[in-house]
């Protein structure tokens, strides 16, 4: 789960990291009031995507009036596909230098990694490898002060800045661990009047660890439908085609979408009913995606944890409830397959055992319509 910049900065600040003075503003009036207190400010759109600066999501304002205008312009606009509903109004920093510092997990080395550069800022992804320090962290050893010192020295820092960097890096790693983060990132880590300050802040929390962080408010990202299906415990992503897809397991769902595309169809969504979903949530999910008005539905189940009979029951339940629907093409094999086919037969529903046959059938069904 991504946190908005202002929430990440709240957490940074609470744990002792220096951040600019600023206020979350929901209206131009709020922003003008904030600017009155702060003087020249930066008005920053709060969206859950990067590249905001280049997309016009950050404006500077010298006066409260300018801050209000900038805020009015940002609120309600859309940046990188995200509607802007809130802005952060912050004191404008007189930045003398920009560093980069982040912690994340190196999935291939299976451990945390520190990343740092003396060339932070908007072009960090184009920084040459030799300007990027990458330090793997052994979880048994943790990220120690000598590691922070080494990192700071590699960035070429000295004196007071080096000291500040060491303590800041230790706190940032502490935040990374304490909040079960997938990523913490400060870019730029700005040098202002000879001191370091987190000019931007990014903090992504591991969804699977959210249950042990009740203090963190869950940010609902995505459409109402996405939220509704996620609340059923299933993984859902909306796409722009017309064939709704439901499969079990991320891999087979992806493969179904791939196949569909190659067979000339266009998927309306990615819906992974995942491991061991029972009839109840699957029926609900099916119901919800039928509400979106797809031209057809493709259900592709290879039963492992998911039992074919439960899928059959889910389908029957929805059909019973909704009566006539758009074509629902079912591909079903695996655990309790025989029981499922017996049930389906009772209700006169046909199913395919092969994936290409099912995909071809759904594509042809949409083309027929």
């Amino acid at each position: 789960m991504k946190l908005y910049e202002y929430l990440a900065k709240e957490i940074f600040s609470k744990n002792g990291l220096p951040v600019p003075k600023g206020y979350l503003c929901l209206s131009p009036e709020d922003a003008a009031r904030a600017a009155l207190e702060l003087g020249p400010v930066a008005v920053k759109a709060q969206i859950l995507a990067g590249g905001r600066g280049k997309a016009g999501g950050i404006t500077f304002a010298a006066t409260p009036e300018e801050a209000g205008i900038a805020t009015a312009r940002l609120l309600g606009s859309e940046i990188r596909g995200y509607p802007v509903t809130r802005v952060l109004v912050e004191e404008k920093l007189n930045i003398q230098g920009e560093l980069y510092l982040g912690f994340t997990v190196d999935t291939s080395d299976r451990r945390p990694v520190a990343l740092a550069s003396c060339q932070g800022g908007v072009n960090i992804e184009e920084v040459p490898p030799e300007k990027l320090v990458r330090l793997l962290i052994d979880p048994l050893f943790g990220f120690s002060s000598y590691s922070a010192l080494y990192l700071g020295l590699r960035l070429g820092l000295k004196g007071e800045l080096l000291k500040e960097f060491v303590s800041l890096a230790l706190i940032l790693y502490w935040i990374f661990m304490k909040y079960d983060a997938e990523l913490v990132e400060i870019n730029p880590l700005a040098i202002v009047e000879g001191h370091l300050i987190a000019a931007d802040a990014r903090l992504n929390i591991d969804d699977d660890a959210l249950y042990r962080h009740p203090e963190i408010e869950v940010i609902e990202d995505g459409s109402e439908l996405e939220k509704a299906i996620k609340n059923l415990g299933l993984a859902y992503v909306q796409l722009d085609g017309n064939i709704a897809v439901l499969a079990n397991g991320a891999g087979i769902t992806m493969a179904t979408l791939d196949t569909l595309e190659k067979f000339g169809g266009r998927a309306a969504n990615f819906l992974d009913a995942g491991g061991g979903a029972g009839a109840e949530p699957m029926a609900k999910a099916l119901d919800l995606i039928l509400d979106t008005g797809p031209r057809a539905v493709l259900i592709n189940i290879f039963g492992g944890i998911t039992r074919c009979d439960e899928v059959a029951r889910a389908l029957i339940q929805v059909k019973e409830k909704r009566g006539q629907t758009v074509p629902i093409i079912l591909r079903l094999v695996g655990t309790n397959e025989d029981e499922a086919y017996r049930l389906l037969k009772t209700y006169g529903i046909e199913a395919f055992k092969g994936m290409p046959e099912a995909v071809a059938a759904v594509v042809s069904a949409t083309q027929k319509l």
Partner: protein
Amino acid sequence: MSVLINEETKVLIQGITGSQGFFHTRQMLAYGTRVVAGVTPGKGGEQVLNIPVYNTVREAVEKHEPDAAAIFVPAAKAYEAAVESVEAGIKLVVIISEHLPLQDTIKLLVLAKTRGVTIIGPNTFGIIVPSKCKIGIMPNTIYRPGPVGIVARSGTLSYEVASGLSGIGLGQSTVIGIGGDRVVGLNFVECLELFARDPLTEAIVMVGEIGGTAEEEAATYIKNKKLIKPVVAYVAGSSAPPGKRMGHAGAIIERGRGTYQSKIRALTEAGVKVATYPWEVAGLIRQLL
């Protein structure tokens, strides 16, 4: 011979009294797996499916010396359950549970390494040596003994592939699910090494997907170590839109790898045959054997 497990393997089930644990223990017993004990704290002394249940792994180890543990415990307790098996000296731990916090997995893997324990998963469908031993949640019906090793990230996709192979008379030596999480224990490269050394395995299927760099690393291994057994790969995700990347750090680490294109390129360059559709894998293997 087979990889990691065989008909002698004695299996402990953690979470045997839960609904998933119970269901799949019954399936494993039906498959012939030697399930020797179960563990559920607070239920020690009970019997489930004629299997004795213990309160702690240590007691079960003292009485039954299991070779492997399967974890069917909810995410919030899966870490401690797995660590308990690692500490108690069980050398193979298969974590079926999904949604383990990332930091739990990382810490578990580090601890397992200090004890020389192999972790499969988390979020894996398990491991099976057809007709000999199954530790996991895969359907009992689709596998046949034979010469093809399968290593897969995704369960259902691997069932698809295994079923396709069995359908044309090509059985499997061992099928390993490495788990769908971003961080997992046993990885593609390690499985390839195991298959390379296994005399029963004559060809290998890799079932991958976009995200991470495991497939690219496998390709590098195949290329550098000159793996002589033929490898066929299927990678899911060709139609996926470019993912919402995890900040700069993700980009910095992956450096352009992790995409469908990069995986296919790496595998092809390593001499791996890449299938366009999952159901084509079996045919490609037949051509190569």
